[in-house]
Structure formats: structure tokens, C-alpha cells
């Protein structure tokens, strides 16, 4: 037989076809594993300590103002018939609350992650597309049109249920109240404010909302959300944006304001404070709670003990395991290490 035929039938002698590709066999021998575990353990403990210390240094002040208890100052406001109710919560700080201080409001048993609720908005409308002002998406039902069949802008459950309690903070100095300036800028994601949500280009903005009605539960239309700052109105109102980013869990907090201006930028000095709450948002019906949270943040965000503890636990676990392994290995020396 000719040689060509011989080679034609014969399978190729390549590393791939013969399953002989050069390969690396990971060898997790004791010499690698024990030091590896020690290093990981030590690193984790280090990170854990850093996280824990950082978290410990974050100051948090939480005040529940739902007004369930009858002696609470906000109890009077829980009656749905009371309109424009204000209540005041007093608190005192014994030491400087380091700045910048962030003010959050927190809701519990509030299901922003409800599927139908989450779908109840018109994304096109919120990008400023005027076509959807007159014809909001059917996903907004039952907040698509009002009783007179006028389109609601912004439509849908999320927008309609926007949080509308207001907070004013005063420092009580010599029986006089000094207002602490609350900064409403920079509380929403930059990309939400600048790209994702857009107002219609109509000038003035009010005209775009002709023939539409405000969401049923809103006191003011969208273009008047912030009377002090024209750039903070419509769909790019920062409070609105914060609200529209749905929370992941039923107990959540959202950023309300930052204290970044004036003498309070360095923090809230020790002393007495009064928090005046414009109590509008009903939560009793679904057994919810409302709270206001003052907190400063670190590089890891807000106070969160979980990460630090978890890192410490896992780190120590690794170290303990490496010690156990070391003992075992020392007792029964491994042949491959001889």
C-alpha cells in the first residue's frame, strides 16, 4: 500500500485529537493550602477589623415617628382626617455628630418590590416623550387616567405613592431655633438625574403638562415639586428619582437630604434639636412604620455590622482550619512532601 493512503486514513497526530493537550494539574498540596489559608484568613481578619471599626465609627440616630404610641407627638397626625399635620420630635446630641450628615427616611412593611407596583409606570413618559403624556401606558392602570379620563402624568402606582412627608431640622440654641440647612441635591443617582429620566424640552415646563392631571395623591403637579429650584422639577426632581428607584426589601430607607452647607457641614454639634415633620404619608393602614435616620457614611456606605462580622468569622475560620490542618499534617507527614 502506498504511503499516502497510509497517512490519509491515519488519525491526525495533534495534541488536541489525541487528548494530549498540555495541561496544568492544579495540585493543592499541604504546602500551598496551609499558607494559602493562613494568608486568606489573615487578610479577611484584617478587612473584617477595618470594616468593623469603620462601621462602629459611623454614628446613627434613628427616630421612629409613626405615632403609634399615644404619647408620641405624632400620634395626633395618624388620624387620616387631620390635614397638613405637623409634629415635632426633639432630641439631643451629647457630642458632635460628624458630618457630612445624611438624613434618610425609612419605611417598613412597605412593598415597593411588589411586581405589579413595580411595573406600574410608563418608562417612555418619564423620558419626556410627549406622546406618552396624552396616552400613558396601560401598565399604569389604575393610575393611568383620572375619573374624568384625563391622562395622569407621571402615571402609575410608584409615582402616585411618592413619599411626601417633609422634615425640617432646627437646633435649639438659647431658646431660639436655628434652622439646619438640608441639601436636596445629590441624593439620587447621577445617571438617573442626568440621563435616564428626562423632562420634556417644552419651555416653560408647565406647558408640557397641559391637558394632564397630577397623580391623584399628589398635592402639587410634577412641575411644581420644588418651588425653590427650577432644575429640580418634573421628572428629574431628586426626591422623585429617589422614590422611583424601587427598594429591594420591604423594610428600606431612602436618602432624603444631606447636611452639607454652612456651619453644619462639619457635623451637628452637641446640643438640642427639634425635627419638625410635615406628616402626610399614611402607613398605619398596612401596619407600616416610618422613621427618620441621621447617619454619616464611610467608604463602605452606611453603618452595616454584617460585613465586618462576616469577614472576621470567615477569616478566623480559615486560620483555625489551617491550624488544624497543620497539626494533622505534622502528625502524619505527607509522603509527597518528603
Amino acid at each position: 500500500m502506498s504511503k499516502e493512503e497510509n497517512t490519509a486514513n491515519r488519525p491526525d497526530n495533534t495534541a488536541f485529537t489525541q487528548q494530549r493537550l498540555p495541561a496544568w494539574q492544579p495540585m493543592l498540596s499541604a504546602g500551598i493550602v496551609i499558607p494559602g489559608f493562613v494568608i486568606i484568613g489573615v487578610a479577611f481578619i484584617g478587612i473584617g477589623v477595618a470594616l468593623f471599626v469603620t462601621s462602629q465609627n459611623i454614628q446613627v440616630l434613628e427616630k421612629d415617628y409613626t405615632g403609634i404610641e399615644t404619647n408620641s407627638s405624632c400620634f395626633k397626625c395618624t388620624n387620616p382626617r387631620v390635614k397638613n399635620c405637623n409634629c415635632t420630635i426633639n432630641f439631643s446630641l451629647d457630642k458632635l455628630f460628624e458630618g457630612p450628615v445624611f438624613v434618610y427616611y425609612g419605611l417598613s412593611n412597605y412593598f415597593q418590590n411588589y411586581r405589579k407596583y413595580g411595573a406600574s409606570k410608563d418608562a417612555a413618559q418619564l423620558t419626556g416623550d410627549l406622546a406618552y403624556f396624552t396616552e400613558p401606558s396601560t401598565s399604569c392602570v389604575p393610575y393611568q387616567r383620572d375619573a374624568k379620563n384625563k391622562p395622569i402624568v407621571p402615571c402609575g402606582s410608584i409615582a402616585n405613592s411618592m413619599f411626601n412627608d417633609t422634615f425640617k431640622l432646627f437646633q435649639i440654641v438659647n431658646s431660639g431655633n436655628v434652622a439646619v440647612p438640608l441639601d436636596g441635591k445629590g441624593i439620587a443617582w447621577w445617571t438617573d438625574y442626568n440621563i435616564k429620566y428626562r423632562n420634556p424640552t417644552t419651555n416653560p415646563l408647565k406647558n408640557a403638562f397641559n391637558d394632564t392631571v397630577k397623580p391623584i395623591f399628589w398635592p402639587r403637579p410634577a412641575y411644581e415639586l420644588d418651588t425653590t429650584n427650577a432644575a429640580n422639577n418634573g421628572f428629574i426632581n431628586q426626591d422623585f428619582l429617589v422614590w422611583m428607584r424601587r427598594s429591594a426589601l420591604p423594610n428600606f430607607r431612602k436618602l432624603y437630604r444631606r447636611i452639607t452647607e454652612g456651619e453644619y457641614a462639619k457635623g451637628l454639634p452637641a446640643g438640642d434639636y427639634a425635627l419638625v415633620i410635615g406628616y402626610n404619608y399614611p402607613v398605619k393602614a398596612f401596619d407600616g412604620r416610618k422613621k427618620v435616620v441621621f447617619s454619616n457614611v464611610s467608604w463602605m456606605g452606611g453603618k452595616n455590622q454584617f460585613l465586618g462580622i462576616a469577614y472576621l468569622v470567615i477569616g478566623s475560620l480559615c486560620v483555625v482550619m489551617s491550624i488544624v490542618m497543620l497539626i494533622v499534617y505534622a502528625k502524619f507527614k505527607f509522603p509527597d512532601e518528603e
Partner: protein
Amino acid sequence: MLVRHIFPVSSLFSLGGDESRVDSRTIYVGHRPSTTEAFIPPKFCDNRIVSSKYTVWNFLPKNLFEQFRRIANFYFLIIFLVQVIVDTPTSPVTSGLPLFFVITVTAIKQGYEDWLRHKADNEVNKYPVTVLENGRRMGTESEKIKVGDVVEVNEDETFPCDLILLQSTRDDDTCFVTTASLDGESNHKTHYTVPDTEKDLDSLSATIECEQPQPDLYKFVGRMHIYKTDREPEIRSLGPENLLLKGATLKNTQRICGVAVYTGMETKMALNYQGKSQKRSAVEKSINAFLLVYLCILVSKALVCTTLKYVWQSKPGQDEPWYNQKTQREKETNLYLKMFTDFLSFMVLFNFIIPVSMYVTVEMQKFLGSFFITWDRDFYDPEIQEGALVNTSDLNEELGQVEYVFTDKTGTLTQNNMEFIECCIDGFQYKYRDAVSELDGFSATDGPVSKLQEKAGKEREELFLRALCLCHTVQVKDMAGVDGMEGCPPPHEQTGFIASSPDEVALVKGAMRYGFTFLGMESKKMKIMNRSNAIETYDLLHVLNFDPVRRRMSVIVRSKSGDALLFCKGADSSIFPRVRQEEVEKIRVHVERNATEGYRTLCVAYKKLSPEEYARADADLQAARLALQDREEKLIAVYNQVEAGMTLIGATAVEDRLQEEAAETMEALQGAGIKVWVLTGDKMETAKSTCYACRLFQRGTELLELTVRTLEDGVRKREERLHDLLLEYHKKAVQDVPPTKGWSKPSQDFGFIIDGASLSMVFNSSESSSSHYKNLFLQICQNCTTVLCCRMAPLQKAQIVKMVKCSKGSPITLSIGDGANDVSMILEAHVGIGIKGKEGRQAVRNSDYAIPKLKHLKKLLLGHGHLYYVRIAHLVQYFFYKNLCFILPQFLYQFFCGYSQQPLYDAAYLTMYNICFTSMPILAYSLLEQHICVEVLLDNATLYRSIAKNAMLRWVPFLYWTLLGVFHGLLFFFGVRFLFGNPALQANGQVFGNWSYGTIVFTVLVFTVTFKLALDTRHWTWINHFVIWGSLCFYVIFSFFWGGIIWPFLKQQRLYYVFAHMLSSASAWLVIVLLILLSLLPDILLVVLRKSSTAFLPRGRPLSSCCRRRPALTASPGVTEVSPSPCFLLHCPPPNTDHDYHSCSSLVCFATPLACFLPDCFCPPYGNVHYHLHPLNSTSR
């Protein structure tokens, strides 16, 4: 199945008058009606071969229909439809796209395969042929041939349909045919024209009456009526020797003409291609079982969620809080309908737990993986210049699960390369001393027969040699000059003879060495050259063909002197009863001695027929040959009658050498815990000696015999004796044997021998006892290391395979054989292996895998099979695992979102998870993984036992993977849940929302799942690196891209910058790292511990270290050399046989139960295996 056309046969032809002949067809040769008959052209199918399944037009609907018949695909279709119809949490795209992907890939694969079939069909159907039509030669295409056409075929062409040979250019009215492509027999077969047909085909007026098409290649019954104007119609019988089969090739004959009898799909070839049943691997059964479990999990998840939803909603204020009021329609919907819709929605939400892409990945893995068998150069045989052949890729992993190997002997264990060793004439032994050197030196005076003791009389010697020269069907290869070389010895070329069986050639060549040379046959005259170089001529009167039932063949010749002589040769068992008994004894000694030495023995007898005897025999034979009904039976009856009262002359011994490395291969298989059964048609002594030679039987093996010989010992009836023997053996081999420990060798080896006759007694005894006997028989067999079944008919082989296959535990069986007689068992067994041997391609064609040599079986099973099994088992488990931990967080999220079916992940992630992010690494793993390198696998046959009984796909490993999935899922979800205790995770105090939550979980998921695979990968080639790191990179890049652009076609930009924001948060990074590490920690620990345990193989070489050199794994029986370790030892006691049985030396296994579920652990499987567990301290001190 066979399609029967029933059409009336005119009473004129029904001469026999039997009614059953409705099942026959009438063919008008050349479409010329017989004169007496109104010509109704009967309808037959055309000559088109259709092996393809689809046409261009019906491909789409038919293929889709076929695909959706598969339960999994149908399930996904339903899910998809539910998503389209009902308002569900995820868009139909999420399940539609993967389904589309799967369907498309499968359709492309099947379409391609069908296209190949179309191409092959066309090649056959468009083949140009010549048809004689009213004297003119018409060129046409093969597919246009009709039944009744007279077709002309030239030399080296294949027959386009089944033809009855009418005319040949050879003067002896024969033609030679090779059926290599049909049954693979490459020898030339002689076919005969219908005797006395007209030389002028145009004037031939005839009809052929023959049976309806049937798939048996070697059976054909028919008759031809030839009409002549002036005479009564003549009748000729037609047999298989007149039938030329489609697919066979014309050889050594210039041209033939034949009439088409069976065309197209009714040809014997086409009928034989059909009915090959689809074999399914056991792994697929496991997959289906797991699928069922997951389906239950899915349904229960959906049920739990639906129930809890309504329980939760019943609390005041929860159902419809003021901020989330219902639409009018929702309020109006019936409560139960709402519940049902909710249930469906949950099903849709969780449906990803059933891995849609698993089937396609498994299929791809099998398809691509099988190439490695084809490509393996170790399977390449330079002799036949071919490598292994994979006929089905569905059974790759089954090769790693074989428990029983059924092997043929001749051609499989042995080479089927016959060599004449010695003969015995009248009880005197003649041994040919040195075949090569004395070949030229023989002369008539001192005789070529070397004298060992005494010589038989010269007359007897010559009679014996004449018998060898005449009693065969060998042909001399048509070589120029053979006829003209009178007086000169013909060339002693190895290829000089053609015969259907190699023994015949060996015998003729043997006779040649002793001075009697067969010169060939010319027009029914056999010419031989005797010792004195004189030519003797004999008229060949009859050939009484060989068949495996009679186990003998005879010729009747007429010598110059006018005597009719019958020469018969055959197996001793079939000859001895037919000769005069006083001659038997002296020859029997030799025959039995030869048989124990492993030679094939044949006895030769003769008989002188008186003219009256001959006349009667001749008449009977003719009559039987003409019979249309029961021709076979009648012929056999006549044969038996003629072959009686013969005189025994002598016996021959032919050696059939063992295949290369046959013994080593068998030893390796036994070391691998595989039971080897030899099923052969050969006689017991020969087979037994082969077994000894292959080391299947060893010196210490106690043989239990259940043969005709042992059954006929006493005076009692066979039936009783059978009963007693079975009980006795059962007691010996089953009851009295102490339960074996682990895989250790039992104290006493048993070998069981049974022959065909006894077997049929076991199977066919009376109703009640049959199952009892079968049971006993099976139990005995299963306790024997080797079972030898001799004198098996092909069907009995299949019966045995079936019996074992259906026995308790349904073990995986493998049949290996090379000949047509092995086809039935090859088809019956789970895995059929064909050897590309001398006996042709029939076995290869019907096999699932074909290899050139027996020795390749070792690598096929121990190497490829083991790897494939580990790969696919890991693939399946991993797929279920990764989908479980994918969906579990989504399930848990329902508890935190008011059971509102809120998806945790974005739709893109839901869709892409199985298709893009996690599919490639596991595919690469399942193609390339070598957790132990092939060399080590081959050297340590015992490793094969570690995966026996589907060890990696049993419920325990499945539970391990499921628990791992649950653990990971819980960890992912709750880890992030605790992090989100305070969602202000960014350094600027801003908060994360629900999509950030899902993205963090998903990122942890993708990385963990991929790293888990990376941890399991023992064999990192650049491809593994590429796909593993590539998949992760792809995920990151995709996420950036997906969240980085306002996608114009999307309604909602839910993930806009979510991923980037996540990466900007240090806490998110930290939690991702933490969760990945924590998830993998148990696995890392296991790997470390397992590593340390595998380090204790002999010489401390870790198994997983793949070595390019063969590792020096020398035998070290016992555990004494093994160093102490913190784990436990599993050891096999040193073998008690004196053979160098080294495979079971010492095997270490870590005793942590979990370690056993992982691919690297070499623990024998669960079930009937016991462990020797010693804390190592005690063994080392």
C-alpha cells in the same frame, strides 16, 4: 418491518397447491407476459433507496414535531405559551430564546445528518445502470429499475437491486461476487445462473415466483417457469445461489445479466438496514429521574408560593394597600382563576430550574466527544489502515459502565488466521515440523509427513489427503496461467485460495504441504495433483453445504474409476455418531488432546456410494432442492440420510492464534471488575483452551461444566440430571461461598461452561421449571469469574445477553464480535462492539463502535469509557446544581416581595445565564477533562470499579449536588439580604434598589458556579482557561454594556448603570468576594482532603498527575508499603493466584462520605460492596 404485498397468484402456477403461497410474488421476466396469462403488471415499489427522514418541504414541520415529542422540549414550549398567554413576571423571550436556541441547534444537527443521508441515497439512486429492453441496451438510473427488468452489470460494479442471475459471461455459468459491503465477507462467492435458461435473453419467456422480501441475506426460495412455444413449461428451483444481492459487487466476471426481483426498500440490504433499535444510555435514565425530582421541586415551590401568597394576603391591609391598588379587572377576576394564574406565574418564574440547555449540551458533548474515539491513534491499525469507528455517539458514557463483556471467540479472542498444525490418520499422529523449510524439500518417496511414531498405511494417507483436497468449497484465485500450468506445482501464494472460511484454506494448504495440491475446478470437475505430480480429476456431483446446525459439510464426487465417493468433514460431535463406532476411539484421543491445546479440530470421513445409493441420493437431493416449501428442512433430512454409515479416516488440527494482547486485555477487564463471558459457536475443548490461553480460566479455577457430556453421564434422564447439576453447582458457587469482601478476589474462582444444547434445555424446559432453572443458572453464572458458552447458535448468544441484561440490577452489557453470527448479540447488548476482522463488516455495521483489534477494547473501556462517564456525569450533576442555585434566590425573594412573582434578576440575565454565561466552561470540561490521565487509567484497571454501577449519578451524589446548590442559593440570597439591611451602600450615601440586589446575587452566582467548575477541573488545557476566564470576562463586559447604553428597543432601562454603580460600591465588592469564598470553602476543603488521600497510591504518585511517560506503577500487593495518613485505607487482600495480578494492589480512599461523590474519589460504589476500613494508625503500627 416487512411489507407484504398480497396479490393473487394464478391457479396455473400453484402446482404445489398449498394455500400459504399467497405470500409470494410473481415476476414477469423482461415484462413479457406468458402466453397463457392475461398480463396484469403487478405493482412493486420502485428501486429508490430512501434512508433520509426529511425532504426540503417537510423538514420544518416534521423535525419540529419530532423535537417537541421530547418531553423536555414540550415542557418548555408549554412554559413559553403560558408566558405568551398569561400575564407572567418574565417576558416570553426569557424562555423562548433558549428554547429557540436548543431547537435550532438540534435541527441543524439533524438536518446535516439527513443531508448526508440524502447525498448517500442519491449516489446510489442515480447510479447509471444498463437495462435490456426488447433486445436494446438502455442506459438509465438505478432508481428507475422496476421489478422484472433485465439488468446488465459489469465487473466490479455493484448490483443495483436484488437480481436473479440469468446469464454470465463465464463459460461455467457462474459468477463471482463479493459481499464485502453487505455482510463484509470479502471472499468471493460463487453464484449460479438458473440452469438451462435460454442463451438469448430476448426470447426468454419466463415468470419467477418467489417469496415476499425478507431480511435474511442467506435465504431465498423461488422457482422459475420457463415457457417455450413448443413444450410444456419447465420449472427450475431458485435458491440463494441464484440471487445476487443489492450492494454486492461482481468480481472476476466480465458481465452478467439478471432479472430484478426485489427493488428499492424491499431489497434484502434495505430490509437489513431497518429495525436497528435505538439504544439509550443509562445516563439518560438518570437524567430523566433527576428531571422528575426537579419538576417536583418546581411544582412544590410554585405551590408553596401560591399558598403563602393567599395566606399572606388574607391579613388585613396586605392584599391591597393604598399605594398599590388593583385594577378593575383584577378585582373582578374569579379567585380560583387568580390562584391558578398565580400558580402558572410562579411556575414560569421558577422554570429555569429545569435546565433547558442541558439536553443540547449533553447532545453536543456526546456528538463532539465521540470524535476523540475516532481520532485516537492508538486505535489505528496499520494492517487494515483503519482506526476506530463510532456508529452512535449516544453510548459513549456507557463504555464506562460495562459490567459484563460477552465476547466471541473466533476472530475476536483469536485471530481467525488458520494454520494447519497436524493431522491424525487412523489414529497415527502426523505433525508437520517446519512448514517453511520443508516446503520445497518434500518428495514423493519419503513422504512429506514427518513420522512421529508409526505411519498409517499409505493408502489411508492418500485417501485422507484426497479427502482434504476435495471436500471443500475453496476456489483457486483466477490467475493467468493456472490452467496452462499442467504438471507444474501452482504458485504457493498465500492468496491463492478463496474460501468462505479460513479453515478450509488452511486444510487445503495443509494437504498441499503433504503433496496433494488442489488445482481448481473447471466445469464441475475438480482437479488435484497428487504426490507423484499426476493430475487426478473428479466430477463434483453434489455439495452438501456447511451450516452451523449440522456443523459439517460433504461433497459427492465421482472418481475416474466411476465410483461415487462421499467425503465429509465436520466437528467431531457431528461426525462421530455418523461413522462406524469402532474407529472412533483411537481418533477421539487425538481430537481431544488437540482441542485442549487450543486447536480447531475437524474429523474427516468418507463413504463409497454404490450406484443405487447414489441414484437415490441424487434424486432426493434434486427433489429437496426444488421444493418451494420447507426446502431447508427437507434438504437437511436428505443430508442426514446421505451422511450416514461413513468411515472415519482421520482428524485435522488447525491453530487459530490468539489476538494480540488478548490475555492482557482480558486480564485488564477482569481487573476492572468486568465479568467476561465467552460465547462461541466453537466446540468446548477448543474454547476452553482459548480461555486458558487468555487467562480467563486460570490454574486455580474450578470449572463447573453443564454440557451434553456431563448431562449424559448417568442412566437418568437428561432433565433430571440437569436439575441435579444445577442444584449442585448452585450450592458450590453461590451458597457455600462466603460473601465477598469488596472487590477482593474470592477465595475460589469458578468458571462455568455450558453448551448450546444444555442451554436450550435450561431455557426450554417445561414451563414451571424453566424460570427456576434460568434463575439458578443465572445465579451460578454471576458468581463465576468467567462463563464459557460454547456451541452457541447466534440466537442463543442474544438470548444469553438478554438474560443477563434483564437480570437483577440490570447490569450494563457489552458484546464484542467480528462475524455475522455475532450481530444478534451485538444488537442485543447495551453496547455492541464490532471488530473489523476477517469475517467481514456485518458486525461492524451493526455495532455501536467498531475497533480494529480486540486489544483496543481495553483503552476503549478503561480509558475513553471511564473519562466519558466521569465527564457526562459531572456535566449532568453540575447542570442541575447550577440551575438550582440560580433559581433558589429567586424563590427566596418571593418571601420578601409579597409573593408577587417579582423576578430577582433582570430578564437578560435570566435568559443568558444558561446559554452564555455558564454553558461553555462545562462543555469544555465535559470534552476535555481527564481527572486521571489515560495511562494511569489503563495501568490501574481497578480504577474502573470506582465508577461502576453508575456511581456518580446515584441518589447520594445527586443529593450532595442538590444540597450544595441549596447551600449556595441560601448563601447568595441571605448574604446579600443582610448586606441590604442598610441599602445605603455607596460612599456618597445613596441607596441601592432591587435591581442592584439582583445583580449582586447574580454576579456572585456566576462567579461561584464557574469557580466551582474550575475547582473540579483537574486538567487545565488552554481551552479550559480560555472558556472559564472568557465566560467571566464576557459576563462582566456584557453587564457593563447592557447597563451602559439606553437600549432603544427596550421599554424599560431597568439595569441602566446598575452594574457600574455596584462596582463603585466597596461593600458590594466585599460581599461578592466574601460570598464566593464562603460558597467554595467546603469544596476547597474537600479537594484538599481528597488530594491528600489520593496521594497514597503506590509509590505515592497522585493519580491525577497526568504523566506523559508511563508511570512506574509496579505491583505492591498489600498495604504494607503505604505510608500512614490521616485517613482510612481501603485495601484489597493480596491476590492468591500465582499470576502477576497487580491491578488490585492497594487502593486508598478517603473515608469522608462526601469525598466519594466527587469524581476524584476512587471508592468503589455503594450497594453490595463492603469496605475494609482501617484507621491507618492500626495498620502501620
